[in-house]
């Protein structure tokens, strides 16, 4: 069984995230890491593998991104993935979700036959939550997305998911695309043994030519939407802070809410 887990390298949300002059996300000067939400995807991929007694399931971590994006798949290897692929090509820079989904789909096809593609709920930078469904569309596979819990049985998966208005139980048979939320189960930390073992695991770097994608299908100039402006909002500043003493806090707060016309 082949399980591909898509992991993205993103700028650290705790750092000072910003844009380049061409309005693309600055991925070079800002420290990056494996998108926190993709750790849950790696975790589910590993759990599904582990639930398959005797089956020689393989978990392959896949990322598309610049040089330093390799850290995302390295972390996945340390957590327990068996191999990794990094699609690295200068032409990819500035790709929109549509182009990224094309690259991911082509890479998955090259890895094929694949039984399961797992992704996170959203990348913590772009945060569109569309890649997994785009992948399902391109690969012609069922999608089980936004899973808060995952149950594998034989050749099928059953998930629970929360929509705006309901809780749903959805199932499909493999092969399929799965995406999971941070409620699906705590992600494991890499153990010391895992970190050492990761160094010896296969990690391939592929160019666009390797997966049969033309350079003019991707990148900033091929994007189907264009960013015209990025403006930093002035950071919020602290207002008045009072310390409550014998009910003074509630009184002051009520006064504030009245002055601001909320009462």
């Amino acid at each position: 069984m082949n399980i591909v887990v898509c992991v993205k390298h993103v700028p650290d949300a705790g750092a000072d995230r910003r844009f380049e002059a061409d309005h693309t996300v600055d991925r070079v000067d800002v420290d990056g890491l494996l998108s926190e939400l993709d750790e849950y995807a790696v975790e589910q991929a590993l759990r599904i593998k582990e639930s398959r007694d005797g089956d020689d399931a393989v978990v392959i971590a896949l990322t598309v991104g610049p040089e330093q994006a390799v850290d995302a798949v390295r972390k996945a290897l340390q957590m327990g993935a068996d191999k990794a692929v990094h699609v690295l090509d200068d032409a990819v820079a500035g790709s929109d979700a549509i182009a990224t989904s094309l690259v991911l789909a082509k890479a998955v096809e090259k890895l094929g036959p694949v039984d399961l593609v797992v992704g996170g709920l959203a990348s913590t930078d772009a945060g569109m939550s569309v890649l997994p469904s785009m992948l399902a569309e391109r690969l012609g596979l069922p999608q089980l997305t936004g899973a808060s819990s995952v149950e594998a049985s034989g050749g099928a998966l059953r998930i629970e998911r929360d929509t705006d208005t309901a809780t749903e139980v959805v199932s499909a048979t493999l092969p399929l695309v799965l995406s999971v939320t941070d409620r699906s189960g705590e992600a494991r930390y890499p153990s010391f043994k895992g970190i050492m073992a990761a160094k010896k695991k296969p990690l391939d770097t592929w160019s666009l030519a390797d997966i049969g994608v033309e350079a003019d299908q991707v990148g900033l100039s091929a994007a189907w939407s264009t960013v015209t402006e990025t403006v930093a909002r002035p950071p919020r500043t602290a207002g008045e802070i009072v310390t409550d003493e014998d009910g003074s806090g509630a009184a002051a707060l009520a006064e504030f809410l009245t002055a601001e016309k909320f009462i």
Partner: protein
Amino acid sequence: MSEVLVLIDHVAGSVRKPTFELLTIAKRLGSPSAVFIGSPEHVEGVVEQVREYGADKLYPIDDAGLRDYLVAPKAEALQQLAAGRDVAAILLPSSAENKEIAGRLAVKLQSGLITDAVDVAADGTTTQSVFAGGYSVTARVTKGTPIITVKPNSAAPEASPGSGIIEHVDVTISEGAKTAVVEKREPRQSTGRPELTEAAIVVSGGRGTNGDFAEVERLADALGAAVGASRAAVDSGWIPYAFQVGQTGKTVSPRLYVANGISGAIQHRAGMQTSKTIVAVNKDAEAPIFAIADFGVVGDLDTVLPALTAEVARRKG
């Protein structure tokens, strides 16, 4: 005039407010055509609701063959609807499910996609709030039919009646789209309070409530507000996930956000940072939430909230 397709967000034929906002936005771009994926028995009621906010057309699509499957059939239906029509843009309310429909549709129609817009101008330029509210980004679709998902509270719904002509369309859903089967659907219970993402005021509770949301709810009711929560409160099982505010919960942008017993972790701030006014009650003066609060009370919420609720009730008379 080109049509602008607006996917209706509804619960059993009761149209939700974001749809009216989208119809208002659609009027800037062309002639609004509302798309109703639902039961035929609700069509009459729905057309009354959307006509009032400017829908010139209503395309009802019977969901009998769609509703038991995840998103793929809806994307196919919209693709077939858009094909052969002069469509200026396709607008969907920004929910997790609609973003997935939009993603598939973008690939099918070979069209650019913009998600989570907070505004759309007449020329199709969108505004988005990114990096946890740290940046404002303007963008435009440059290929195909712009597909845009729009966040709640992005426009004030304007009542301005449209022609409301019902035009029936037939869609055929492929077997391939029916592979993710919804086995069970349990509708969320209504709280009777405003919808979290639409509310003008949100009162939230975190780990500091220690499991008792009663005071948070009382204050919310006194202010006519929705109730929200931090992930810590949700993870502890004190309140359902539907109320979670933050990176992996709802993004809210109300006029007033009241955070009670919430420290203000970055993942929480990501979901509420663009609120107009932020108020915090926390017993730890060092809590990061105070750094972004317009007004803060350092104190125990067990004493501050009941007193505040009483004072609000008194002032409201």
